[in-house]
C-alpha cells in the first residue's frame, strides 16, 4: 500500500526474471501464462490484499485464489518476495520432494496458499464459498480470484457466476486474465469466448475492461464502486508472455522451457544485473 507504481514496475521486472530463470532450471512450463497475469498479482499483493506473512492463517485475512493454477510459478515468487517463506527456498523448485511443483499444493503444505488449483474451474466456486462464509460469520475480509480466459471454458465458472449474482455477493472480485490464448489455440476460436465482457454483464456482474499490465488502470478498476452493489469482474486484457519480447503473444511458450541463453536474453530485456542471473554451474533438472 506504500509502493509507487514505479516500485511495482521494478518488483514486476524482478519477478518476471526469476520466473523465467526458475522455469529454465526446473523445466517448469506455462511461462506465457505466468507472465500474462504477473502484473495483476503484483498489484494485489503489494497494493490490495490485507495479509500478514507472519500470521498467514489469520482468520481476518483477505483471500486470494489463483484459479489458473498453472501460473503457480509466479505465485510462489510473489509469496516468497512478500515474506511467506524465504526466497532461497525456491532454489529447490522441482527437486524430488520439493513443495514447489507445477501447481499450488493444498494450503497446509505452504503458507500463503488458499487453494490447490490446477484443475481449471475450481477457484471461483471455492472463492464464492469463502466470501459467503465471511458474510455468514460476520467477517470483513474480501476474496479475490484470478481466472484464465481458457478456464472460462469450464461450466463450473458459469455455475458460480450465476450463484454469485443470485446471492448478491459483493465482497468478491474476479479477474479474467484475458491473454486471448489457451493451451492449443485462440480462446475466442476454441469455444467462442467473445464477447467476454458482455457475457459477464449478462450474468449480472459489474464489468470493467482494462489493460491488465497498466497499474493505474488496475487501480481504478479495483477501486471503482458499483452503485447497484453487483459483484465485480475485471476483464484484464493481457499479453501472453508479457515482458520478454520473444515470448510475447507466442503460444509456444505455453509449454516451452527457455534455454540458458534465452534466460540471459530475457535478463537483458528486463534490466536485470548480470550478477543476479546465476546460471553458471547449474544444470536444468529434467523430469524425463
Amino acid at each position, binding site marked *: 500500500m506504500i509502493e509507487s507504481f514505479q516500485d511495482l514496475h521494478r518488483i514486476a521486472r524482478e519477478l518476471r526474471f526469476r520466473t523465467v530463470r526458475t522455469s529454465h532450471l526446473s523445466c517448469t512450463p506455462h511461462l506465457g501464462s505466468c507472465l500474462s497475469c504477473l502484473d495483476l498479482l503484483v498489484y494485489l499483493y503489494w497494493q490490495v490484499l490485507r495479509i500478514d506473512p507472519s500470521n498467514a492463517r489469520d482468520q481476518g485475512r483477505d483471500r486470494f485464489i489463483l484459479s489458473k493454477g498453472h501460473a503457480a510459478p509466479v505465485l510462489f515468487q510473489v509469496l516468497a518476495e512478500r515474506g511467506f517463506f524465504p526466497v532461497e527456498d525456491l532454489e529447490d523448485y522441482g527437486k524430488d520432494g520439493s513443495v514447489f511443483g507445477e501447481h499450488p499444493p493444498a494450503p497446509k503444505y505452504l503458507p500463503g496458499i488458499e487453494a490447490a488449483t490446477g484443475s481449471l*474451474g*475450481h477457484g471461483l466456486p*471455492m472463492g464464492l*464459498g469463502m466470501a459467503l462464509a465471511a458474510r455468514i460469520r460476520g*467477517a470483513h475480509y474480501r476474496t479475490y480470484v484470478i481466472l484464465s480466459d481458457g478456464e472460462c471454458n469450464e461450466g*463450473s465458472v458459469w455455475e458460480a457466476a450465476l450463484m454469485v449474482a443470485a*446471492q448478491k455477493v459483493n465482497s468478491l472480485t474476479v479477474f479474467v486474465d484475458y491473454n486471448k490464448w489457451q493451451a492449443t489455440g485462440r480462446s475466442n476460436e476454441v469455444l467462442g469466448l467473445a464477447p467476454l465482457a458482455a457475457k459477464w454483464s449478462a450474468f449480472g456482474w459489474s464489468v470493467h475492461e482494462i489493460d491488465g499490465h497498466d497499474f493505474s488502470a488496475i487501480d481504478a478498476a479495483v477501486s471503482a464502486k458499483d452503485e447497484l452493489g453487483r459483484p465485480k469482474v475485471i476483464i484484464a486484457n493481457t499479453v501472453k508472455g508479457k515482458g520478454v519480447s520473444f515470448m510475447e503473444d507466442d503460444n509456444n511458450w505455453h509449454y516451452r522451457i527457455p534455454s540458458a541463453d534465452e534466460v540471459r536474453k530475457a535478463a537483458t530485456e528486463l534490466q536485470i544485473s548480470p550478477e543476479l542471473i546465476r546460471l553458471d554451474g547449474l544444470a536444468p533438472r529434467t523430469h524425463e
Partner: protein
Amino acid sequence: MRNAFADEVTQLAAKDLRIVLLSGDIGNRLFDRLRAQSPTQFINCGVAEANMMGVAAGMALSGLRPITYTITPFTTTRCLEQIRVDVAYHEAPVIIVGTGSGLSYASLGPTHHSLEDFAILRAIPNMRILAPWDAPSLRHVLRQALLDATPTYIRIGKKGEKDVLPIEKVSTIGRLTTLSSGESVAIVAVGTVASEAVRAAEALKSLGVSATVSLAHTVKPLPEADLRELFQTHRFIVTVEEHSLAAGFGESCLSFAQRVGFAGRLRPLGVPDLFLSKAGSQHYARQQAGIDSTAIVEAVRGLISKPS
C-alpha cells in the same frame, strides 16, 4: 430418513452456528423449519452441483461446517472432481449427503440409482463413507461426523424406512452394530438393505439356521476390529449391500479377510455389473439385483450346504 435428516440438521444447526445446509434445489418444503429458524444457515445452490461442492469446500476452509444435500448421483459422481480436489485434498470438513441412494429411487431409473458411490469414493484419500440404515442410525452418525473435521460422505435412503434399533444401541463410527447373535452364519448388512438382512435372519431361523446379524454404517474406514472378531467366531459370512459388487463393501471385506487369513468363507452380495433399466419398486429392483431377503437366504443355504 429424509425427514429425520431435515429434523436432525435443524436441531444441530440451532446449537452449532457453523452448520450451513447447501441444497441442490431439492427437498421442497423439507427445510422450511431450518429456513425459518435461521435463514443464513440454508442456501439453495440451484442445479449446479460442481459449484455447490466447491462452495462447500470454500466455506469449510473458512470455519463453517457445510452439509451438501441432493439426490445421490448428483452429489457424488456429478461433482466427483470437486469432491476429490476441493474437499478431500484440502481436508475440508464438508459433509456430503446423498438422498435416495442405492435403489431407493428404483422407479426413476438408472440416472437416479447410485450403485458406484462406495467404490468411487473409497479410492479417494481422506474420505470417510457412512451408510446408516434407519432414522436413528442416521441421526447418530450425523452427530458424530460433526465432532471431527474429516471429510464425510453419508448416503441415506428416502422416507418410510422402519427403525431397526433405538439410537442408544447404534455403535460409533468405525464399529459394527450387532443386532442378533447366532452360530451358523454372520450376515453383515450395510445401509438401508439391513431390513432385508433382518427378514432373511427370521426366515433362516424358521429353517433352523441361527444367524448373527451385524449392521454396518461405516464403509470407510472399514470396521476391521469387529470384522476380525466375526472371522474368529464364524465360519461363514455373507455381506449384503445395495451397491455394485465391484469394489464395494463386500469386496473390501473379502480383501481384508484374505489379508488377515480368514479360514472360513465370505460371500458378498451386491448388484451385478449392469444397469437396472426396468421400471418398478425398490423391492422389485432388489429382487432383480439379488440382494433381497430371499437372495440372502439362498446365499446362506448355499454356503452352509457346500462348506468346502
